[in-house]
C-alpha cells in the first residue's frame, strides 16, 4: 500500500485525468495484479469490500471505467510516469550488472495486420507486441521498460536503453548483458561497442549469433586454446559437466583485423552421441579485467532476468496487458500503435514485481526470492474483517500460519501513518489475530 500511494501521487502529477478515473483506474490496475485477478472482466464478479477499498472506493470498480482509463493513456504521460517511478536509486554510484531483454506478448488478432515477431515459447514468428525491460541482476529488480510493436527487435533499442540507464541511473560502472537478439547483425554489435568506447564506465557482453560461417571458424580453433573447466552437475549426485573455454577475436563484417572484438567460446561437452553445445560470447571487457570463466559466470546471471519474465507471465499475468494497436484505426491493415496502455500496464507489472520483492526482503532472509504467487498465497490473499471508524480503516486479519513473520512489516506500516484519501483520509491500520487466543468450543 505505501508504494501504491506513492505511485498514485506521481500519477496525479503526470496524467491529465480529464474524466476523473485516474485514481480508480490506477489502483485497480495495481491491486488486481497483487490479488491475482487474471482478466479485467473478472471485475464483474468481484464483490469484496476489502478489494473495493483498495481500489479507491467503497464499491468494487466497474471494468468499463478502468478499461477506458487504461485504453486512453497517452504515451508521453506514461513515459513521464515511468521515468519518475524507475528505481534509479538502486544504481546511483554502484557497480551495476544489468540485463536487457525483450518479452513477446502474442496477439491473435486476424482483423488487424500488426507486426510479427519471434515468440520463443511457441517457437515461431507470429503477431505480437513486445516489452523491453532492463533488470538489475544485483538487486533483482526491474529498472525500465519500453513497449513496442512486435517487429521491433532488441538491436534497435539496446543502445537507447543503455543510454537511459547511464543518464538517469548514474552508476559508477555498468556491465550490460544482452541476448543474441541485440547482435543479429554486425552493425548492431558495432553500435554497442561504439557506445562502450564513448563511456569509460560501460562494458557490454552479449551472446553472439551462431551464424554458420562463424561457427565453422570457431570450431576450427586449435584444441590447445581451450581450457577445461568443471561445472557442477544438474543435481547433487550428478556428474560434473565439462565446459571448455577459449579466447579468440572476431572481425565484424566490413571491418579491419585491428577492430576485432574479444570473443569467448564456450563449448559444453555432452556425453554420448549428442552434439556439443557452443555458446560464443562477445565482450568489451579486457582479459585483465575479467578472465573467460568470470565472463561466463557473470553472463549466466542473466537467467535471473528470464526468470523474472517468467514470474511476470505466470504470477503477474503480464500477457493480459492491453494491446498497443489501435482498434479504432481507419485502416485495419495499417493500424496505429499506441504505446501508452501497453507500456503503462507492463511497467505496473514490473513495479508490483519490485514491491513484492521488497516485501519478501522485509519478511526475512528465508523469504528472499519467493515468487509472487507464494507470497500472495501466504500473506496477501487472507480473509479478515474490516472496521471502518470515523478515524481509521482497521483491517483485522483472521489467524493464519506464519503470521508472526508479518509483524515487523505490519508494525512498520502502522507506524508510517498512511492515510487513504478516498476514504476521507482515514488512517490505515493492519491487525493480526493474537496467537494463543482460546478457540471457541465445538
Amino acid at each position, binding site marked *: 500500500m505505501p508504494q501504491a500511494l506513492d505511485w498514485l501521487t506521481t500519477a496525479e502529477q503526470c496524467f491529465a485525468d480529464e474524466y476523473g478515473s485516474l485514481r480508480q483506474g490506477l489502483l485497480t490496475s495495481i491491486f488486481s495484479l497483487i490479488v491475482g485477478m487474471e482478466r479485467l472482466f473478472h471485475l*464483474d464478479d468481484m464483490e469484496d469490500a476489502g478489494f473495493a477499498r483498495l481500489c479507491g472506493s467503497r464499491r468494487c470498480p466497474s471494468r468499463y471505467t478502468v478499461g477506458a482509463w487504461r485504453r486512453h493513456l497517452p504515451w508521453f504521460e506514461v513515459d513521464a510516469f515511468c521515468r519518475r517511478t524507475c528505481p534509479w536509486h538502486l544504481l546511483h554510484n554502484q557497480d551495476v550488472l544489468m540485463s536487457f531483454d525483450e518479452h513477446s506478448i502474442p496477439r491473435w488478432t486476424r482483423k488487424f495486420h500488426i507486426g510479427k515477431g519471434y515468440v520463443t515459447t511457441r517457437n515461431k514468428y507470429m503477431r505480437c507486441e513486445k516489452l523491453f525491460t532492463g533488470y538489475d541482476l544485483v538487486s533483482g529488480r526491474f529498472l525500465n521498460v519500453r513497449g513496442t510493436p512486435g517487429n521491433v527487435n532488441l538491436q534497435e533499442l539496446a543502445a537507447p536503453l543503455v543510454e537511459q540507464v547511464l543518464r538517469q541511473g548514474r552508476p559508477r560502472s555498468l556491465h550490460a548483458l544482452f541476448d543474441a537478439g541485440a547482435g543479429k547483425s554486425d552493425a548492431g554489435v558495432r553500435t554497442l561497442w561504439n557506445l562502450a568506447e564513448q563511456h569509460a564506465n560501460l562494458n557490454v557482453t552479449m551472446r553472439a549469433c551462431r551464424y554458420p560461417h562463424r561457427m565453422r571458424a570457431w570450431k576450427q580453433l586449435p584444441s590447445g586454446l581451450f581450457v577445461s573447466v568443471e561445472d557442477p552437475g544438474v543435481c547433487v549426485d550428478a556428474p560434473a559437466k565439462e565446459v571448455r573455454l577459449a579466447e579468440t577475436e572476431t572481425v565484424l563484417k566490413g571491418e579491419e583485423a585491428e577492430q576485432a572484438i574479444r570473443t569467448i567460446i564456450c563449448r559444453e561437452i555432452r556425453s554420448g552421441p549428442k552434439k556439443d553445445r557452443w555458446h560464443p560470447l562477445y565482450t568489451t571487457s579486457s582479459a585483465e579485467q575479467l578472465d573467460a570463466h568470470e565472463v561466463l559466470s557473470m553472463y549466466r546471471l542473466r537467467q535471473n532476468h528470464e526468470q523474472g519474465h517468467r514470474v511476470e507471465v505466470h504470477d503477474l499475468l503480464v500477457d493480459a496487458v492491453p494491446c498497443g494497436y489501435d482498434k479504432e484505426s481507419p485502416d485495419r491493415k495499417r493500424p496505429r500503435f499506441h504505446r501508452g496502455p501497453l507500456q503503462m500496464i507492463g511497467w505496473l507489472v514490473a513495479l508490483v514485481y519490485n514491491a513484492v520483492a521488497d516485501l519478501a526482503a522485509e519478511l526475512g532472509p528465508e523469504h528472499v526470492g519467493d515468487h509472487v504467487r507464494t507470497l500472495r498465497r501466504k500473506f496477501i490473499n487472507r480473509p479478515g*474483517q474490516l472496521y471502518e*471508524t470515523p*478515524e481509521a480503516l482497521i483491517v*483485522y486479519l483472521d489467524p493464519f500460519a506464519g503470521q508472526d513473520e508479518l509483524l515487523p512489516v505490519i508494525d512498520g506500516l502502522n507506524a508510517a501513518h498512511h492515510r487513504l484519501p478516498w476514504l476521507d483520509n482515514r488512517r490505515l491500520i493492519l*491487525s*493480526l489475530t*493474537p496467537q494463543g*487466543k482460546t478457540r471457541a468450543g465445538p
Partner: protein
Amino acid sequence: MNATDGAFAQWLSQAQINEDRLAAEQRGLLQCAFAFREHCGDDYYSNRLLSHFLLHCGSGLKVAQIARLVGISRPTASHQQGVSSKEAIQAAHHRMAGRSHGKLLPRYAGPIAEFILTHADATRYDILDFIERTFGVRVSTVALHHFCKKFGLDRATRSEATAPKPSVERTPAEPRVAETAPASQPVPLPPPPFSRRGRNTRARSS
C-alpha cells in the same frame, strides 16, 4: 460503649457532620458504616466499598459529606457516583494492581475493535482486562482513552458516527403531482422496465 461513641462522634466531627442534625435513619446508617470501618479497616478496598454504598444507598447525605467520611476528595467521590458495582470493584482491582506496563500498539486496534463491537456493554475495565489477557500488557485508562479516540473507537465517536445526520446539501424532494388521465382516455401504460442493474453473477467469497 462510651469509647465507641466517642470515636463515632469524632469521626462525624472530622467529617464536619453535626450529629444533632442527622435523622434517626441516617444516624443508624452511619453507625453501621462506622462499625464496618472498625471491623474491616480503612484500606483502599474497604473505603471504596463503603463510599460506593453510601453514594448509592439514598441516605440523603451530601456527596461532600460522604467524601469527608471516607477520606477521599470531593471530585473523586463525584466521579464515583453512578458507577455500577461491577465497575467499582474492577476499578479497585485496577487501582491496586500496580503500575501499568507495556504499550498499546496500533496493531492491537483490530482485536480491540472486535471486542468493543461484540461487547456493547463492556466497561473500560473489561477492555483493559481483555487487553491484559490477550496481549499481556497493562495500560492505564487514560492510555486506553487516547488509543480509542485516535482510532475512532471511543463511545463518543461511535455514537456520533451512528447517529442519523440531516443532509444539508440535499433539498427535499418536491411532492409529486398525481398523474391524472382525462376522462374517456385510457390510462397511460407504465414505461418498460429497465434492465436489471444489479450483478447477476455469483460473488467471489472473500
